[in-house]
Each structure stands twice: as structure tokens, then as C-alpha cells.
């Protein structure tokens, strides 16, 4: 496989974008990415989206977006892997360039969640319809069951979970593209309206509209464009049982463990080599469990680590400097790409007030469902 680098990025602000359609937001992000990369054309494109069919009644997003972006007849493909759709879109673009099949490929992601669909029901399609959703479980409910099990097994507290949300809002307050730019307190998280015990509203990522796109290219193209190469050191993906109840352990996400193992091997790195990490904090417990499963902390100590500030900017391993899904917003299909964009900005030293000093190696962990899919990328800033 040949070297692949990220040469451009663009995204919309995340939030309730009432005056814009799914086409408007995707094209806006895609045009920014193309402009940032400084390329005249792309060879092909991927559009990650979880459920545009349920959210806006539109499938066939590859062709829709190629058409409105004015790039037909290039190949354009819709990629779906639930909440990991964006990360998997990036992986497809990476593989296409790495294989030599194309030189310049766009990886995009989008979701338009505020156009009137029953969002809880649409999101629940990422779980087992007949044996989880049929019984009345919701996504907050699935992660809440992980949280209760984690609390029972390791003594994790609601206050430790709240520390994740507080830290992510603090980071998000410094991100101009974030949906919620307000800081919150531990008490606000603990006293918020309950959604699914032990989660209150502020333990949950929001419903959002948004789009994000990056351009990946071969090293040769990057050199011609005189870009600082942000190289993809690893791209790894793993699956697990669709139902949470089918797994041997409820407090570990097997797909994260397996994808991480492959990613570290591919990059020739270990957890302590990572300077910052974007993780899929769809709920506060997700960040805690993933921070353990990626090897940053021992199993059971992710909650304590968050409470001690080890995951804050300036801590042992800054996690979700962008604000994460919690504060930046979670337009499902766009999330995995937005994580890559945060790494791209950090590794280029352009993350403003939330810059991690000297950041050279970044990781992005994106997952679907209650962890039935996980995709991990490691990026390195070149000279």
C-alpha cells in the first residue's frame, strides 16, 4: 500500500440548521474541503450517512451529492455503518488511494436530523430490531445499561461521568463549529432531566444537523501541492455482535479492543505514543469505556481519569479537544469525518485556543450502534 495523506478539510457548523437542506450542508462542507486542498478535481467520493432514508426520505446519497456538487460522472458512493458511517467513509477513501486506484478522493459525511423524523426510532435501527428495539430499548437505554454495569463492577460514579460532559463542553466552547459553546457544571449534569438512568440529558450527545468532508491524496499529489503532509498511519475496523446482550462482557467494547489492536500494529505505535484522541462520546460512559479499551487507562479506571483531569487539554492524553459529540454535536454520518478534521487542525497547529502543544500523532475512534462497529484512524504530522 502507498502512503496516503489528508490535504484538505471543510465542515459546516453543527447544530439545528433549519434553513438548510441535507444537500446544502453537504455541498457547503465539500466545497470548503476542495478549496482548502487546492485541487481542481477529485477522482471519486464517498458520503457517509447513517439513515438519510428515515431522516429525510432520501437514499442514493452518493449520486445526489455528486450531482449537486457538480462533479458527475465521477464514482460516488453512500457508505453506511450506523454512527461509524463517517469513519468508514474515510477508510474507503484511504483504501482507494492506498491501493493506487485513485489519486485524490473525497471522504464526506452528513446527517440532517431535524427535518421531522422520530429521531429516537431512527437511531434505534442501529440496534437489533427484533430482539432489542422491539422490547422498547432506546440508544440512551443501551449505553445506560453499559453504565450501570460499569458502576457496579468498578465503582464508577455519576460524578465521574459528569466530568466527561463538563470537560467536553469546556473544549467545545473553544470550537467555532460546535453546536453548544457554553460551559456546564457538574451540578448541572447531575441535576438535568433524566433520560435513561443513570443518564440525565447532559450525559447524552444532542440531535444535530451537519456535514464534514476531507480530501485524501497520494504523497506525490501532496508534494506537488506543497502541503504539510498529514499522513494516515493506520486505518483499522472491527465488528461485534449487533445486540449488546450477546457479548461476553458488557463493560468492554470488543470492536474497540480489536480495531485498536490492529491500528497500533499497523502504525507501529503504543497508546503512550498518541498525543490526542477524538473518541465517540455519544454518551458519557462511552468515552470512559473507550478510553480504557484504547489502552489509555486500565480497565475500570476511565471514570477516575476523567475526574482527575487526565483527559483534559494539558492532561496525560487530551480526549475530544473538539468538544466531542457531546458539545460539538452529533450529526451521525458526519461525526467520523469531523473527528478527522479535528486531528487535521491539531496536527497542522491550527486549533486555536484548544491547541494541544506539540501535537504530532492523533487518533480518531468512531463507532456504530452499541459498539457493533468500530473504526480507528491514526494520523501523523509530517515535516
Amino acid at each position: 500500500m502507498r502512503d496516503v495523506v489528508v490535504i484538505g478539510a471543510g465542515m459546516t457548523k453543527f447544530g439545528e440548521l433549519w434553513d438548510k437542506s441535507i444537500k446544502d450542508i453537504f455541498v457547503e462542507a465539500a466545497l470548503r474541503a476542495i478549496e482548502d486542498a487546492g485541487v481542481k478535481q477529485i477522482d471519486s467520493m464517498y458520503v457517509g450517512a447513517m439513515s438519510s432514508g428515515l431522516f429525510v426520505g432520501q437514499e442514493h446519497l452518493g449520486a445526489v451529492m455528486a450531482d449537486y456538487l457538480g462533479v458527475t460522472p465521477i464514482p460516488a458512493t453512500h457508505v453506511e455503518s450506523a454512527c461509524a458511517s463517517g469513519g468508514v467513509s474515510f477508510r474507503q477513501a484511504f483504501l482507494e488511494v492506498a491501493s493506487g486506484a485513485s489519486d485524490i478522493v473525497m471522504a464526506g459525511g452528513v446527517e440532517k436530523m431535524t427535518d421531522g423524523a422520530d429521531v429516537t426510532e431512527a437511531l434505534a435501527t442501529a440496534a437489533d430490531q427484533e430482539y432489542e428495539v422491539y422490547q422498547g430499548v432506546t440508544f440512551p437505554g443501551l449505553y445506560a445499561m453499559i453504565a450501570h454495569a460499569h458502576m457496579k463492577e468498578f465503582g464508577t460514579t455519576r460524578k465521574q461521568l459528569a466530568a466527561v460532559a463538563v470537560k467536553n463542553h469546556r473544549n467545545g466552547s473553544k470550537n467555532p463549529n460546535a453546536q453548544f459553546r457554553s460551559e456546564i457544571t457538574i451540578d448541572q449534569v447531575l441535576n438535568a432531566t433524566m433520560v435513561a438512568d443513570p443518564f440525565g440529558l447532559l450525559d447524552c450527545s444532542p440531535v444535530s444537523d451537519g456535514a464534514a468532508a476531507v480530501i485524501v491524496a497520494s504523497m506525490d499529489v501532496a508534494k506537488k501541492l506543497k502541503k504539510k503532509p498529514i499522513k494516515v498511519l493506520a486505518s483499522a475496523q472491527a465488528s461485534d455482535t449487533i445486540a449488546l446482550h450477546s457479548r461476553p462482557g458488557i463493560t468492554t467494547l470488543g470492536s474497540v479492543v480489536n480495531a485498536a489492536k490492529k491500528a497500533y500494529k499497523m502504525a507501529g505505535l503504543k497508546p503512550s505514543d498518541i498525543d490526542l484522541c477524538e473518541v465517540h462520546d455519544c454518551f458519557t460512559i462511552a468515552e470512559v469505556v473507550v478510553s480504557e479499551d484504547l489502552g489509555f487507562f486500565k480497565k475500570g479506571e476511565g471514570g477516575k481519569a476523567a475526574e482527575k483531569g487526565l483527559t483534559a487539554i494539558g492532561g496525560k492524553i487530551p480526549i475530544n479537544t473538539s468538544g466531542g459529540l457531546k458539545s460539538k454535536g452529533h450529526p451521525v454520518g458526519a461525526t467520523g469525518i469531523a473527528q478527522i478534521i479535528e486531528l487535521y487542525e491539531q496536527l497542522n497547529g491550527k486549533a486555536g485556543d484548544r491547541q494541544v502543544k506539540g501535537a504530532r500523532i492523533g487518533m480518531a475512534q468512531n463507532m456504530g450502534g452499541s459498539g457493533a462497529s468500530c473504526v480507528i484512524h491514526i494520523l501523523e504530522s509530517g515535516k
Partner: protein
Amino acid sequence: MITARYHREIPQRYRLEAGKCAKCGYVAFPPRLVCPKCKTKKFKTINLKDEGKILTYTIIRVGPDKFSKETPYAIGIVEVSDGVRLTTQIADVDVEKLKIGQKVKLVFRKIQDDGKAGIHMYGYKAVLV
């Protein structure tokens, strides 16, 4: 839900029918065509035991539209005595007093209605023993 789709799952929802791998003994609920452990394609139909314990649970305070009139309701992962785990509502209980490890029994209950004019849909729920 179209009736045929509901009908297909009746053996599992009404009678807890599972598939036991003829080679390694893995119990698949619902039944599968291939054993995820040993890849064998031969299964024997068994009925799961209806007693088990709560491994974890949550209280749904904000439900999907279909269940919104039933909130708050408890839902948990229950391990039945065959070692099989399933997701089920925990009924007839003060949800504030639930605990991990409590023993339950699976009983036959109505789970949901298909809109205003559709069919009633049944299945298992857990109750404390």
C-alpha cells in the same frame, strides 16, 4: 409492522425457542443458521429456561413514540439459567428499587401495539421472583 414479520418471531417470543449447536452446545437465541463459535450448521431446537437474573438495567424516562405512554419503564439484560442473555422489559416492579443481580422469571405479556388499527404484539417480559 406487517403481520408476516411479527409471525416469523412467534416461536421465540411466545415459547423462547432457541437453537442448540449439535457440535459445541452453543445456544443461539434467536436461532441462527451458523454457529458463531464452531461454524457448524446443525442445530437442535430447545426451549430456554424461563428463570434468570438481572445483569444490568436502565429506566427509560424518554421513550420512542410507540412506548412514550409507558414511561418510566425498566429494561434490562437478563441471563437465563441456560447462560443465554436477552434484552427484556422488567414489569410489575417499583423501578426505583431495581438492583443488579435480582432474580427474575420470564412471563408472557403484551409488548406493543401497531398504531391505532394494527395488531397487538406479544412476547416476554421479566418479573421479579
